[in-house]
Protein backbone atom coordinates (compact mmCIF):
# COMPACT_ATOMS: atom_id res chain seq x y z
CA UNK A 1 0.00 0.00 0.00
CA UNK A 2 1.28 3.46 -0.87
CA UNK A 3 0.22 7.09 -0.55
CA UNK A 4 0.21 9.00 -3.84
CA UNK A 5 2.38 12.09 -3.95
CA UNK A 6 4.11 11.56 -0.60
CA UNK A 7 7.66 12.57 -1.41
CA UNK A 8 9.48 12.11 1.89
CA UNK A 9 10.52 14.20 4.85
CA UNK A 10 12.42 17.18 3.42
CA UNK A 11 9.37 19.44 3.11
CA UNK A 12 8.81 22.18 5.67
CA UNK A 13 5.05 21.72 5.26
CA UNK A 14 3.15 18.51 4.57
CA UNK A 15 1.48 17.78 1.24
CA UNK A 16 -2.33 17.92 0.92
CA UNK A 17 -4.60 16.64 -1.82
CA UNK A 18 -7.38 19.03 -2.85
CA UNK A 19 -10.92 18.12 -3.94
CA UNK A 20 -13.24 20.76 -5.38
CA UNK A 21 -17.03 20.68 -5.83
CA UNK A 22 -17.84 22.72 -8.93
CA UNK A 23 -21.46 23.36 -7.95
CA UNK A 24 -24.14 22.02 -5.67
CA UNK A 25 -25.29 18.56 -6.68
CA UNK A 26 -21.90 17.47 -8.03
CA UNK A 27 -19.23 15.37 -6.35
CA UNK A 28 -15.98 16.79 -5.06
CA UNK A 29 -13.37 16.01 -7.70
CA UNK A 30 -9.61 15.83 -7.23
CA UNK A 31 -8.08 19.12 -8.44
CA UNK A 32 -4.44 18.79 -7.42
CA UNK A 33 -2.20 19.12 -4.42
CA UNK A 34 -0.45 21.78 -2.36
CA UNK A 35 1.71 22.29 0.72
CA UNK A 36 0.35 23.86 3.90
CA UNK A 37 1.26 23.77 7.59
CA UNK A 38 -2.21 22.74 8.79
CA UNK A 39 -5.75 22.02 7.58
CA UNK A 40 -6.94 25.61 8.00
CA UNK A 41 -4.15 27.01 5.82
CA UNK A 42 -4.58 24.12 3.42
CA UNK A 43 -8.22 25.06 2.82
CA UNK A 44 -7.27 28.73 2.32
CA UNK A 45 -4.41 27.90 -0.01
CA UNK A 46 -6.69 25.53 -1.92
CA UNK A 47 -9.19 28.35 -2.42
CA UNK A 48 -6.44 30.66 -3.72
CA UNK A 49 -4.82 28.05 -5.92
CA UNK A 50 -7.76 26.09 -7.34
CA UNK A 51 -10.78 28.42 -7.32
CA UNK A 52 -9.48 31.73 -8.70
CA UNK A 53 -12.13 31.65 -11.42
CA UNK A 54 -15.13 30.48 -9.45
CA UNK A 55 -14.35 26.81 -10.14
CA UNK A 56 -15.85 25.69 -6.86
CA UNK A 57 -18.40 26.14 -4.09
CA UNK A 58 -16.72 23.76 -1.65
CA UNK A 59 -13.22 22.44 -1.04
CA UNK A 60 -11.95 19.33 0.74
CA UNK A 61 -8.34 18.84 1.74
CA UNK A 62 -6.76 15.66 3.02
CA UNK A 63 -3.18 14.95 3.93
CA UNK A 64 -1.57 13.05 1.06
CA UNK A 65 0.03 10.73 3.62
CA UNK A 66 -3.45 9.74 4.88
CA UNK A 67 -4.52 8.34 1.50
CA UNK A 68 -4.24 4.63 0.97
CA UNK A 69 -3.98 3.51 -2.64
CA UNK A 70 -4.26 0.09 -4.23
CA UNK A 71 -0.93 -1.60 -4.87
CA UNK A 72 0.31 -0.31 -8.24
CA UNK A 73 2.18 -3.54 -8.95
CA UNK A 74 -0.93 -5.69 -8.51
CA UNK A 75 -3.20 -3.68 -10.78
CA UNK A 76 -3.87 -6.48 -13.26
CA UNK A 77 -5.06 -9.09 -10.76
CA UNK A 78 -6.68 -6.56 -8.46
CA UNK A 79 -8.96 -5.23 -11.19
CA UNK A 80 -9.48 -8.56 -12.89
CA UNK A 81 -12.95 -9.33 -11.58
CA UNK A 82 -15.01 -7.28 -14.10
CA UNK A 83 -13.04 -8.69 -17.08
CA UNK A 84 -15.26 -10.84 -19.27
CA UNK A 85 -18.40 -9.73 -17.46
CA UNK A 86 -19.83 -7.57 -20.20
CA UNK A 87 -23.30 -8.69 -19.07
CA UNK A 88 -22.98 -6.05 -16.36
CA UNK A 89 -23.47 -3.38 -19.06
CA UNK A 90 -26.75 -2.54 -20.74
CA UNK A 91 -25.00 -2.65 -24.14
CA UNK A 92 -24.55 -6.43 -23.74
CA UNK A 93 -28.30 -6.96 -24.36
CA UNK A 94 -28.74 -6.37 -28.09
CA UNK A 95 -31.95 -8.31 -28.77
CA UNK A 96 -33.88 -5.41 -27.27
CA UNK A 97 -32.15 -2.74 -29.38
CA UNK A 98 -35.23 -2.01 -31.46
CA UNK A 99 -37.67 -2.04 -28.55
CA UNK A 100 -38.75 1.47 -27.53
CA UNK A 101 -38.12 2.80 -24.03
CA UNK A 102 -35.76 -0.04 -23.05
Amino acid at each position, binding site marked *: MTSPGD*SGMRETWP*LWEVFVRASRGLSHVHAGS*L*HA*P*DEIMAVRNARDLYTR*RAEGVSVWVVRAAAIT*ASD*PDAKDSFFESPQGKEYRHATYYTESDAVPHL
Partner: protein
Amino acid sequence: MNTTTDVTTDARADARAAQIADEAGERRFNELLASESRVEPSDWMPEGYRKTLIRQISQHGHSEIIGMQPESNWIARAPSLKRKAILMAKVQDEAGHGLYLYSAAQTLGVDRETMFDQLITGKAKYSSIFNYTTPTWADMGSIGWLVDGAAICNQVPLCRVSYGPYGRAMVRICKEESFHQRQGFEILLELMRGTDAQKEMAQESVNRWYAPALMMFGPPDEDSPNSKQSMAWNIKRFSNDDLRQRFVDMLVPQAEILGVTLPDAALRWNEERGHYDFGDLDWSEFHEVLAGRGPANTIRVSRRREAHENGAWVREAARAYADAQAESRRGLVA
Protein backbone atom coordinates in the same frame (compact mmCIF):
# COMPACT_ATOMS: atom_id res chain seq x y z
CA MET B 1 31.19 -22.60 5.05
CA ASN B 2 28.97 -21.76 2.20
CA THR B 3 27.12 -18.82 3.81
CA THR B 4 28.86 -16.46 1.42
CA THR B 5 27.76 -18.59 -1.50
CA ASP B 6 24.17 -18.52 -0.24
CA VAL B 7 24.21 -14.77 0.08
CA THR B 8 25.63 -14.49 -3.41
CA THR B 9 22.99 -16.86 -4.75
CA ASP B 10 20.25 -14.85 -3.01
CA ALA B 11 21.63 -11.61 -4.38
CA ARG B 12 21.70 -13.16 -7.84
CA ALA B 13 18.11 -14.35 -7.49
CA ASP B 14 17.06 -10.88 -6.34
CA ALA B 15 18.88 -9.26 -9.23
CA ARG B 16 17.22 -11.69 -11.63
CA ALA B 17 13.77 -10.99 -10.15
CA ALA B 18 14.39 -7.24 -10.44
CA GLN B 19 15.46 -7.69 -14.03
CA ILE B 20 12.30 -9.64 -14.87
CA ALA B 21 10.16 -6.95 -13.19
CA ASP B 22 12.02 -4.26 -15.19
CA GLU B 23 11.47 -6.12 -18.43
CA ALA B 24 7.74 -6.44 -17.72
CA GLY B 25 7.64 -2.78 -16.69
CA GLU B 26 9.41 -1.70 -19.85
CA ARG B 27 7.02 -3.70 -22.03
CA ARG B 28 4.06 -2.07 -20.30
CA PHE B 29 5.67 1.39 -20.62
CA ASN B 30 6.21 0.90 -24.35
CA GLU B 31 2.63 -0.31 -24.78
CA LEU B 32 1.35 2.80 -23.00
CA LEU B 33 3.38 5.07 -25.30
CA ALA B 34 2.36 3.16 -28.43
CA SER B 35 -1.32 3.48 -27.58
CA GLU B 36 -0.99 7.22 -26.78
CA SER B 37 -2.01 6.40 -23.23
CA ARG B 38 -0.66 8.03 -20.07
CA VAL B 39 2.11 7.03 -17.71
CA GLU B 40 1.24 7.58 -14.04
CA PRO B 41 3.64 8.12 -11.10
CA SER B 42 3.50 4.55 -9.78
CA ASP B 43 4.23 2.98 -13.21
CA TRP B 44 7.62 1.65 -14.20
CA MET B 45 9.51 4.18 -16.36
CA PRO B 46 13.04 4.36 -17.76
CA GLU B 47 15.48 6.41 -15.67
CA GLY B 48 16.14 8.71 -18.62
CA TYR B 49 12.42 9.42 -18.99
CA ARG B 50 12.14 10.26 -15.29
CA LYS B 51 15.25 12.48 -15.31
CA THR B 52 14.28 14.31 -18.48
CA LEU B 53 10.79 14.95 -17.16
CA ILE B 54 12.05 16.19 -13.79
CA ARG B 55 14.32 18.62 -15.64
CA GLN B 56 11.65 19.71 -18.11
CA ILE B 57 8.81 20.14 -15.58
CA SER B 58 10.94 21.84 -12.92
CA GLN B 59 12.43 24.23 -15.50
CA HIS B 60 8.92 24.99 -16.63
CA GLY B 61 7.88 25.60 -13.00
CA HIS B 62 10.90 27.84 -12.42
CA SER B 63 9.97 29.85 -15.54
CA GLU B 64 6.53 30.55 -14.11
CA ILE B 65 7.97 31.61 -10.76
CA ILE B 66 10.70 33.82 -12.27
CA GLY B 67 8.17 35.04 -14.84
CA MET B 68 6.33 36.88 -12.09
CA GLN B 69 9.17 39.37 -11.76
CA PRO B 70 9.19 41.28 -15.07
CA GLU B 71 5.46 41.96 -14.64
CA SER B 72 5.28 42.60 -10.91
CA ASN B 73 7.72 45.38 -11.77
CA TRP B 74 4.75 47.21 -13.32
CA ILE B 75 1.91 46.52 -10.88
CA ALA B 76 2.43 49.72 -8.91
CA ARG B 77 2.94 51.80 -12.07
CA ALA B 78 0.18 50.38 -14.27
CA PRO B 79 -1.85 53.26 -15.77
CA SER B 80 -5.21 52.52 -14.14
CA LEU B 81 -6.77 50.60 -11.28
CA LYS B 82 -8.23 48.14 -13.79
CA ARG B 83 -4.80 47.49 -15.31
CA LYS B 84 -3.29 47.02 -11.84
CA ALA B 85 -5.98 44.49 -10.90
CA ILE B 86 -5.51 42.59 -14.18
CA LEU B 87 -1.75 42.51 -13.75
CA MET B 88 -2.07 41.24 -10.19
CA ALA B 89 -4.43 38.49 -11.34
CA LYS B 90 -1.94 37.52 -14.02
CA VAL B 91 1.03 37.42 -11.66
CA GLN B 92 -1.06 35.38 -9.22
CA ASP B 93 -1.80 32.95 -12.06
CA GLU B 94 1.93 32.56 -12.74
CA ALA B 95 2.48 31.68 -9.08
CA GLY B 96 -0.30 29.10 -9.33
CA HIS B 97 1.18 27.64 -12.53
CA GLY B 98 4.54 27.31 -10.81
CA LEU B 99 2.88 25.40 -7.99
CA TYR B 100 0.96 23.04 -10.31
CA LEU B 101 4.21 22.24 -12.10
CA TYR B 102 6.26 21.75 -8.94
CA SER B 103 3.57 19.34 -7.72
CA ALA B 104 3.77 17.43 -10.99
CA ALA B 105 7.58 17.24 -10.75
CA GLN B 106 7.33 15.98 -7.18
CA THR B 107 5.36 12.93 -8.30
CA LEU B 108 8.60 11.84 -10.02
CA GLY B 109 10.48 11.73 -6.71
CA VAL B 110 12.21 15.12 -6.53
CA ASP B 111 11.28 17.21 -3.50
CA ARG B 112 10.38 20.85 -3.58
CA GLU B 113 13.24 22.03 -1.39
CA THR B 114 15.67 20.52 -3.90
CA MET B 115 14.00 22.37 -6.77
CA PHE B 116 14.03 25.64 -4.82
CA ASP B 117 17.71 25.15 -4.00
CA GLN B 118 18.52 24.54 -7.65
CA LEU B 119 16.70 27.72 -8.67
CA ILE B 120 18.15 30.07 -6.06
CA THR B 121 21.70 28.79 -6.42
CA GLY B 122 21.52 29.32 -10.18
CA LYS B 123 21.92 25.61 -10.99
CA ALA B 124 18.50 25.28 -12.60
CA LYS B 125 17.58 26.77 -15.95
CA TYR B 126 14.36 28.62 -16.71
CA SER B 127 13.06 30.22 -19.87
CA SER B 128 15.62 32.78 -21.07
CA ILE B 129 12.90 35.20 -22.03
CA PHE B 130 12.52 36.29 -18.41
CA ASN B 131 16.08 37.56 -18.37
CA TYR B 132 15.02 40.50 -20.52
CA THR B 133 13.96 43.73 -18.82
CA THR B 134 10.63 45.57 -18.97
CA PRO B 135 11.46 49.30 -19.17
CA THR B 136 8.12 50.48 -20.63
CA TRP B 137 4.40 49.88 -20.01
CA ALA B 138 4.11 48.57 -23.58
CA ASP B 139 6.32 45.67 -22.47
CA MET B 140 3.33 44.37 -20.47
CA GLY B 141 1.51 44.23 -23.80
CA SER B 142 4.39 42.54 -25.60
CA ILE B 143 4.85 39.96 -22.85
CA GLY B 144 1.18 39.03 -22.99
CA TRP B 145 0.89 38.99 -26.77
CA LEU B 146 4.29 37.61 -27.80
CA VAL B 147 5.74 35.81 -24.77
CA ASP B 148 2.51 34.27 -23.49
CA GLY B 149 1.49 33.67 -27.09
CA ALA B 150 4.65 31.66 -27.74
CA ALA B 151 4.20 29.86 -24.43
CA ILE B 152 0.64 28.85 -25.33
CA CYS B 153 1.82 27.61 -28.73
CA ASN B 154 4.35 25.45 -26.90
CA GLN B 155 2.02 24.34 -24.14
CA VAL B 156 -1.20 23.39 -25.91
CA PRO B 157 0.39 20.25 -27.43
CA LEU B 158 1.81 19.41 -23.98
CA CYS B 159 -1.73 18.84 -22.70
CA ARG B 160 -1.40 15.48 -24.49
CA VAL B 161 2.03 14.67 -23.07
CA SER B 162 2.56 11.04 -22.01
CA TYR B 163 3.12 11.76 -18.32
CA GLY B 164 -0.29 12.10 -16.63
CA PRO B 165 0.41 14.65 -13.87
CA TYR B 166 2.27 16.94 -16.33
CA GLY B 167 -0.55 16.78 -18.88
CA ARG B 168 -3.16 17.56 -16.23
CA ALA B 169 -1.15 20.56 -15.01
CA MET B 170 -0.85 21.78 -18.60
CA VAL B 171 -4.61 21.56 -19.21
CA ARG B 172 -5.23 23.83 -16.24
CA ILE B 173 -2.43 26.21 -17.24
CA CYS B 174 -3.56 26.53 -20.86
CA LYS B 175 -7.10 27.40 -19.78
CA GLU B 176 -5.75 30.24 -17.68
CA GLU B 177 -3.09 31.47 -20.12
CA SER B 178 -5.54 32.44 -22.84
CA PHE B 179 -6.60 35.51 -20.85
CA HIS B 180 -2.94 36.49 -20.51
CA GLN B 181 -2.41 36.67 -24.24
CA ARG B 182 -5.62 38.58 -24.92
CA GLN B 183 -4.95 41.15 -22.21
CA GLY B 184 -1.47 41.75 -23.68
CA PHE B 185 -2.90 42.17 -27.15
CA GLU B 186 -5.41 44.69 -25.83
CA ILE B 187 -2.73 46.73 -24.07
CA LEU B 188 -0.90 47.07 -27.40
CA LEU B 189 -4.14 47.73 -29.29
CA GLU B 190 -5.01 50.55 -26.93
CA LEU B 191 -1.56 52.10 -27.34
CA MET B 192 -1.80 51.76 -31.13
CA ARG B 193 -5.09 53.69 -31.03
CA GLY B 194 -3.47 56.44 -28.97
CA THR B 195 -1.06 59.32 -29.57
CA ASP B 196 2.03 59.10 -31.77
CA ALA B 197 4.17 58.72 -28.67
CA GLN B 198 2.01 55.77 -27.51
CA LYS B 199 2.19 54.12 -30.93
CA GLU B 200 5.91 54.55 -30.92
CA MET B 201 6.14 53.01 -27.47
CA ALA B 202 4.18 49.94 -28.63
CA GLN B 203 6.28 49.53 -31.78
CA GLU B 204 9.56 49.95 -29.90
CA SER B 205 8.51 47.28 -27.42
CA VAL B 206 7.47 44.82 -30.16
CA ASN B 207 10.83 45.47 -31.82
CA ARG B 208 12.61 44.30 -28.68
CA TRP B 209 10.43 41.26 -27.89
CA TYR B 210 9.80 39.75 -31.32
CA ALA B 211 13.07 37.86 -31.81
CA PRO B 212 13.46 36.70 -28.18
CA ALA B 213 9.86 35.39 -28.30
CA LEU B 214 10.68 33.38 -31.44
CA MET B 215 13.72 31.96 -29.69
CA MET B 216 11.52 30.65 -26.86
CA PHE B 217 10.88 27.54 -28.94
CA GLY B 218 14.53 26.59 -28.56
CA PRO B 219 17.37 26.14 -31.05
CA PRO B 220 16.79 25.00 -34.65
CA ASP B 221 15.96 21.29 -34.95
CA GLU B 222 19.43 20.36 -36.22
CA ASP B 223 20.96 21.85 -33.04
CA SER B 224 18.48 20.24 -30.66
CA PRO B 225 19.95 16.79 -30.09
CA ASN B 226 17.57 15.66 -27.34
CA SER B 227 14.39 16.51 -29.21
CA LYS B 228 14.19 13.17 -31.00
CA GLN B 229 14.19 11.11 -27.81
CA SER B 230 11.70 13.48 -26.17
CA MET B 231 9.37 13.13 -29.15
CA ALA B 232 9.65 9.34 -29.00
CA TRP B 233 8.63 9.53 -25.35
CA ASN B 234 5.70 11.82 -26.18
CA ILE B 235 6.96 14.49 -23.80
CA LYS B 236 7.52 16.81 -26.74
CA ARG B 237 4.89 16.66 -29.46
CA PHE B 238 6.23 18.96 -32.20
CA SER B 239 9.73 20.06 -33.16
CA ASN B 240 11.10 23.50 -32.21
CA ASP B 241 11.04 24.71 -35.82
CA ASP B 242 7.51 23.45 -36.45
CA LEU B 243 6.20 25.29 -33.41
CA ARG B 244 8.11 28.44 -34.34
CA GLN B 245 6.60 28.36 -37.84
CA ARG B 246 3.12 27.86 -36.42
CA PHE B 247 3.66 30.85 -34.13
CA VAL B 248 4.90 33.16 -36.91
CA ASP B 249 1.94 32.17 -39.08
CA MET B 250 -0.45 33.19 -36.30
CA LEU B 251 1.46 36.35 -35.50
CA VAL B 252 1.46 38.07 -38.89
CA PRO B 253 -2.32 38.62 -39.20
CA GLN B 254 -2.48 39.68 -35.55
CA ALA B 255 0.26 42.26 -36.13
CA GLU B 256 -1.76 43.62 -39.07
CA ILE B 257 -4.79 44.10 -36.83
CA LEU B 258 -2.61 45.87 -34.28
CA GLY B 259 -0.94 47.99 -36.93
CA VAL B 260 2.55 47.17 -35.68
CA THR B 261 5.42 46.13 -37.94
CA LEU B 262 7.22 42.92 -37.04
CA PRO B 263 10.95 43.71 -37.10
CA ASP B 264 11.93 41.11 -39.68
CA ALA B 265 12.86 42.19 -43.21
CA ALA B 266 12.70 38.61 -44.48
CA LEU B 267 9.11 38.08 -43.35
CA ARG B 268 6.90 37.27 -46.33
CA TRP B 269 4.18 34.84 -47.40
CA ASN B 270 5.49 31.80 -49.23
CA GLU B 271 2.72 30.59 -51.51
CA GLU B 272 4.49 27.33 -52.26
CA ARG B 273 4.99 26.32 -48.64
CA GLY B 274 1.73 27.81 -47.43
CA HIS B 275 3.65 29.48 -44.61
CA TYR B 276 5.39 32.74 -43.85
CA ASP B 277 9.15 32.78 -44.43
CA PHE B 278 11.09 34.59 -41.76
CA GLY B 279 14.67 35.68 -41.14
CA ASP B 280 17.43 33.91 -39.25
CA LEU B 281 17.59 34.52 -35.54
CA ASP B 282 20.69 35.57 -33.63
CA TRP B 283 21.39 32.33 -31.76
CA SER B 284 24.59 33.70 -30.25
CA GLU B 285 22.37 36.05 -28.22
CA PHE B 286 20.23 33.09 -27.14
CA HIS B 287 23.28 31.17 -25.94
CA GLU B 288 24.67 34.22 -24.16
CA VAL B 289 21.45 34.74 -22.20
CA LEU B 290 21.21 31.01 -21.50
CA ALA B 291 24.75 31.07 -20.16
CA GLY B 292 23.73 33.71 -17.63
CA ARG B 293 24.85 36.83 -19.47
CA GLY B 294 21.45 38.26 -20.33
CA PRO B 295 20.27 41.72 -19.25
CA ALA B 296 18.65 40.54 -15.99
CA ASN B 297 19.84 37.00 -15.11
CA THR B 298 21.58 38.05 -11.90
CA ILE B 299 18.80 40.22 -10.58
CA ARG B 300 16.09 37.61 -11.30
CA VAL B 301 17.83 34.87 -9.36
CA SER B 302 18.96 37.10 -6.51
CA ARG B 303 15.41 38.49 -6.08
CA ARG B 304 14.09 34.97 -5.93
CA ARG B 305 16.73 33.96 -3.40
CA GLU B 306 15.96 36.98 -1.20
CA ALA B 307 12.24 36.26 -1.28
CA HIS B 308 12.83 32.62 -0.42
CA GLU B 309 15.24 33.37 2.41
CA ASN B 310 13.19 36.26 3.81
CA GLY B 311 10.13 34.02 3.86
CA ALA B 312 11.84 31.21 5.76
CA TRP B 313 10.74 32.43 9.19
CA VAL B 314 7.11 32.60 8.01
CA ARG B 315 7.19 28.99 6.81
CA GLU B 316 8.83 27.83 10.01
CA ALA B 317 6.51 29.86 12.27
CA ALA B 318 3.42 28.49 10.50
CA ARG B 319 4.76 24.98 10.92
CA ALA B 320 5.53 25.56 14.62
CA TYR B 321 2.04 26.99 15.16
CA ALA B 322 0.42 24.01 13.44
CA ASP B 323 2.49 21.60 15.55
CA ALA B 324 1.56 23.44 18.76
CA GLN B 325 -2.14 23.40 17.83
CA ALA B 326 -1.99 19.68 17.11
CA GLU B 327 -0.18 19.12 20.41
CA SER B 328 -2.78 21.02 22.45
CA ARG B 329 -5.62 19.10 20.73
CA ARG B 330 -3.93 15.85 21.75
CA GLY B 331 -3.67 17.24 25.33
CA LEU B 332 -7.40 17.99 25.40
CA VAL B 333 -8.28 14.49 24.21
CA ALA B 334 -6.02 12.88 26.83
